[in-house]
């Protein structure tokens, strides 16, 4: 068995040259506009062992979400490599491809398929998802009638129930009302307690990270400031943020 589930080497992601271009603008402006270059992630290397939980912390705009997206295969890195060792991966995110006029039930099927699961598998998990979301009769109503909390609850239930080898969680632990929060936190824990599953969590909640993670990575301006034991890193982080 492979020791690592994720290996990232010298990852760089920047947003240069990628401003949308318009014919009108280029006709009106002869001078070349300066290209803003913004490096969101700079030379980041790390590895996560199989079955371990990595927490990522850092202030807003430090490149956490960008890196998560790169891990999930949505962004292409400018340089460097991401090796997932053939594991399936999903980004736990809110409302993937919901069709607003359709019922919750139909949307479960649609989102699940987008995440790459087969129709049979989703149907077999359907009851579990519906039960977990706890929306009552709303599950057969169009999604547009949902409140924002219900919407996120459904989205969370889909991604949390349809499990992949690697799960990326981007600050969605605080979804829904108090009861659902508790439920989703427990679900997270049970997801995590499965020793074959590798998890990467981005969060601002120190208590979540120190309780759940085996290792914490602190990012600052696109670089790794520190990586290691949760308590040590979090202590330094709290000190730094004061």
């Amino acid at each position, binding site marked *: 068995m492979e020791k690592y589930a994720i290996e990232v080497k010298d990852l760089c992601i920047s*947003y240069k040259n*990628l*401003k*949308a*271009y*318009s*014919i*009108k*603008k280029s006709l009106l402006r002869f001078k070349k506009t300066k290209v803003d270059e913004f490096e969101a992630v700079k030379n980041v290397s790390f590895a996560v062992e199989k079955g371990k939980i990595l927490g990522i912390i850092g202030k807003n705009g430090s490149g956490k979400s960008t890196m998560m*997206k790169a891990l*999930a*295969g*949505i*962004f*292409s890195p400018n340089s460097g490599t991401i090796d997932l060792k053939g594991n399936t991966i*999903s*980004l736990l*995110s809110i*409302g*993937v*491809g*919901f*069709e*607003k*006029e*359709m019922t919750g039930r*139909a949307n479960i*099927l*649609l989102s699940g*398929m*987008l*995440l*790459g699961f*087969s*129709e049979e598998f989703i149907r077999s998990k359907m009851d579990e998802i519906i039960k977990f979301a706890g929306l009552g009769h709303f599950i057969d109503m*169009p999604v547009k009638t949902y409140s924002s909390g219900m919407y996120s609850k459904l989205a969370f239930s889909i991604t949390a129930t349809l499990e992949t080898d690697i799960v990326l969680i981007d600050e969605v632990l605080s979804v829904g009302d108090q009861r659902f929060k508790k439920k989703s936190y427990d679900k997270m824990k049970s997801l995590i307690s499965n020793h074959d599953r590798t998890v990467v969590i981005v969060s601002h909640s120190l208590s979540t990270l120190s309780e759940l993670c085996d290792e914490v990575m602190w990012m600052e301006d696109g670089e790794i400031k520190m990586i290691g034991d949760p308590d040590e890193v979090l202590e330094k982080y709290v000190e730094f943020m004061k």
Partner: protein
Amino acid sequence: MNRFIRDVKQYSKYTQHSAKAILKSEVANSYLNWLWWILDPVCFMIIYYFIFGIVFGAKEKYFLAFIFIGLTIWDFFNKTVMQSVKIVKNNKSIVSKVYLPKYILIFVKMLVNGFKMAISFAIVVILMIIYRVPLTVNILHVVPLMLVLFVLTFGISTFLLHFGVYVEDLSNVVTIVLRLMFYITGIFYNIMTKLEAPYNLVITRGNPMAFLLTSLRQAMLYGEAPDMIILLIWLAFGLLLSVCGIRLIYKNENSYVKVI
């Protein structure tokens, strides 16, 4: 190319379900529901019939069926091409959350528009029965003609999908080009008889939509076979466009999210 086949297989179920969901949600809240799919083309046909058949006095045989074939094909092409310019932006919620080959979005649109086209075609068949249009073997040419239509539409759409991401006002340009094409495609007049000798041939051969339209009408209404060589040329061109377009998308699709 192998990747393309594998991806299409993997996402084919999603494509179908997504198209179904779009169609269902389109009619979910209107009073006449799916009747609109029939009413919409019928009303436009009546308008064009009134203007071109009565006001301008067009004298084509089976004129209603003649316009209807034109409208049906043009609508499919026009809608799919137009929608694909902004398709990535409009599906931001999907594109920024999971990976999916972006041309799958075109397939979804083609299925949706293809379904509407099938309804229009059913109306054409009804019209043909009412007119008692004599059927010949040549009607079988409809199959290769439709195939070329799909390939060409897909090929053009892939390029528009790619450039639509980077060029903000591409849709304005595309609207103008499509309008020009609309008038030189001969949807409500016969190019061959209304235009002077060299130009009519140039247009019917050089404009793929005009060629497909004219050939479809010939095959369905007037029992004539299409020009196979030109059909093959357009098929080859469509395939070439599609292959290049798919490559272009594969190469760049992971940067799209950074722009939108």
